[in-house]
């Protein structure tokens, strides 16, 4: 499936929202006018210096950006190879990279005069970020969350409630992230006039994949500046976990045309890629299909029915992936690999002990691959891993598995 290499990897999507064969606008007619309206509104906002300035101000004073680029010295010593850096997006207000995207979309919703915000959430990080921004701007907030995820991410449910959001447990289908997204789409179809759908990852109908990527690209842009300041050159490799893929595309996108920079996207291999319906690795273990408004790699059966997938991490437990990643896979620009639940848990524990950082289970998957890659690389190799979320929300899940510690 190797295509001809384009001159630039940063020009997509085309005007129909396609990244190569992926992306598009596969939505019901009711939503189509809204999707077009959103595209026009975002096109205007992104070229408006006032919009940019307002977002930058919030990033600096509300989120705490730029997030540090931290040299993980003891992790580096432990691996005995590449110099390992963490991009510390877990230090953002609300504890993950999700707020970068949410603030962009909420400012856009305000410009569009929408006062009712809906969102889907898996681990709850996007829901918390959306609830936070809605509280900050006095907007109504409804968060759809699979009933299974409501159970396994209770702390984030409490957080959303505190922030004034209404969390709706979704009982349909497999009761996880994909079903939360279905339910959010159903809400949007029903409340088209008033409602802005704040999608949490770089997926969905055009313009969401491009828009979310743009809002998350601050991760990679900062990393570039910080690494140049610190080491005088670009990093040699980037590693990020992938569920829908927004933190990864945010880190990768500014570097896509820097040919010397290798990139690794790490999917959730759950119980193992060979276990049927036991993982959430759409790129490594799925195939192209159409779901939630876009064509991308999906986990499904031979009849095109979507399977639930599994990951210890609720944030990675999604049967699809952003369409730009699907394209980057096929053109060979990014290496997509995976890590199992067990590997992620081991990396989680190691990070706590070596660096005094409790990572979320999501970036623990990225860290698991860093632990394999780094020892094989020379000591002057500069590797950046996106520490895209903190693990406070996961301590109960981990404690359950590890027997209370």
């Amino acid at each position: 499936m190797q295509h001809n290499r384009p001159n630039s990897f940063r020009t997509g999507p085309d005007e129909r929202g396609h990244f190569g064969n992926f992306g598009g606008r596969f939505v019901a007619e009711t939503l189509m006018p809204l999707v077009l309206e959103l595209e026009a509104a975002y096109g205007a906002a992104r070229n408006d210096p006032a919009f940019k300035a307002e977002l930058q101000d919030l990033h600096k004073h509300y989120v705490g950006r730029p997030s540090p680029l931290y040299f993980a010295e003891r992790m580096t010593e432990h691996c005995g190879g590449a110099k390992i850096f963490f991009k510390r997006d877990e230090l953002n207000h609300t504890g993950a990279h999700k707020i970068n995207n949410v603030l962009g979309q909420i400012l856009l919703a305000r410009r569009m005069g929408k006062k009712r915000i809906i969102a889907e959430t898996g681990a709850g990080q996007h829901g918390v970020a959306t609830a936070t921004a809605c509280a900050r701007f006095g907007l109504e907030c409804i968060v759809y969350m699979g009933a299974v995820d409501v159970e396994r991410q209770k702390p984030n449910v409490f957080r959303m409630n505190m922030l004034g959001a209404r969390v709706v447990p979704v009982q349909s289908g497999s009761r996880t992230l994909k079903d939360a997204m279905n339910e959010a789409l159903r809400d949007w179809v029903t409340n088209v006039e008033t409602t802005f759908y704040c999608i949490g990852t770089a997926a969905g109908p055009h313009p969401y994949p491009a828009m979310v990527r743009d809002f998350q690209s601050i991760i990679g842009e900062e990393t570039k500046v910080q690494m140049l300041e610190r080491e005088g050159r670009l990093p040699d490799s980037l590693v990020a976990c992938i569920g829908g893929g927004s933190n990864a595309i945010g880190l990768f996108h500014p570097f896509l045309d820097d040919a010397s920079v290798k990139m690794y996207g790490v999917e959730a291999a759950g119980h193992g890629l060979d276990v049927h319906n036991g993982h959430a690795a759409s790129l490594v273990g799925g195939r192209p299909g159409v779901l939630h408004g876009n064509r991308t790699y999906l986990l499904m059966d031979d009849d095109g029915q979507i399977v639930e997938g599994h990951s210890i991490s609720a944030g990675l437990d999604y049967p699809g992936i952003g369409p730009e990643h699907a394209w980057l896979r096929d053109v060979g620009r990014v290496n997509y690999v995976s890590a199992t639940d067990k590997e992620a848990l081991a990396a989680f524990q190691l990070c706590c002990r070596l660096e005094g950082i409790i990572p979320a289970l999501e970036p623990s998957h990225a860290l698991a691959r860093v632990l394999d890659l780094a020892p094989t690389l020379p000591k002057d190799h500069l590797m950046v891993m996106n520490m895209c979320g903190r693990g406070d929300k996961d301590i109960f899940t981990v404690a359950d598995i590890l027997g209370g510690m």
Partner: protein
Amino acid sequence: MTSHPAPLPRTRIDDIFARLKTEGRAALVTFVEAGDPDEATSQALLDALPAAGADIIEFGMPFTDPMADGPVIQAAGLRALHAGQTLRRTLAMVKAFRSTNDATPLVLMGYFNPIYVYGVEAFVRDARAAGVDGLIVVDLPPEEDDELCLPAMAAGLNFIRLATPTTDAARLPKVLQNTSGFVYYVSINGITGAAEPDYSQVEHAVARLRAHTDLPICVGFGVRNAAAARAIATHADGVVVGTALISALAGTLDQQGHATGTTRGKVVDLVQALSQGVHAAQRG
């Protein structure tokens, strides 16, 4: 990309609307989900629909993630999938239906992914061969016509498009461009099985559509009983009923979700009542 395939051959859909026009009444369009709650019951129900008064049959292709459907039709799809329904089986059921009925139009309705995975070219060929007349694929707006609409037209299938309250005058021509058979007007913004429509709005909307197209206009979403069917049949060329039929079916199932002795009969009774409503409508 605006390519215009050759004009479609006449389908059973064109024939029925021509006939009903002479009769001066609207069509009753009934939706049931293929394989719900099991293949045998579903086949028996499908075969019984024309005699009960269904003029056009919409046959749902089950999908795990029906984003535009409410809980009743979602549950129907999941029942069918749990009973082993696949797109291949759905086509086989249409073929079996055609062995006893060559007149009643049948439209497959669902979502794109199972078709995409089946293979578009193979699907339109097999669907046509099985006796399918048209397709309604909810997540394919005109912006994605290359995907299935144009291949379906080339294979002689009607591609029936949904128009909604959000489809404004500027957008309507695009929506209607490659639509054939009939236009399916979704009378409310929302998912299937939601609130009853405001009938005065329906009248207005049908008039708005008629200014743009000569195609028959069928109205659905929210039609539950004979009175509602009658109200809509006064203005529209067809009345689509889905959720109410599935609810009637679901009400007959046992605790495990299996069919009982009354399953087919309850649905047939409701179709007969709806048909009477449609027949009673005074066309304006």
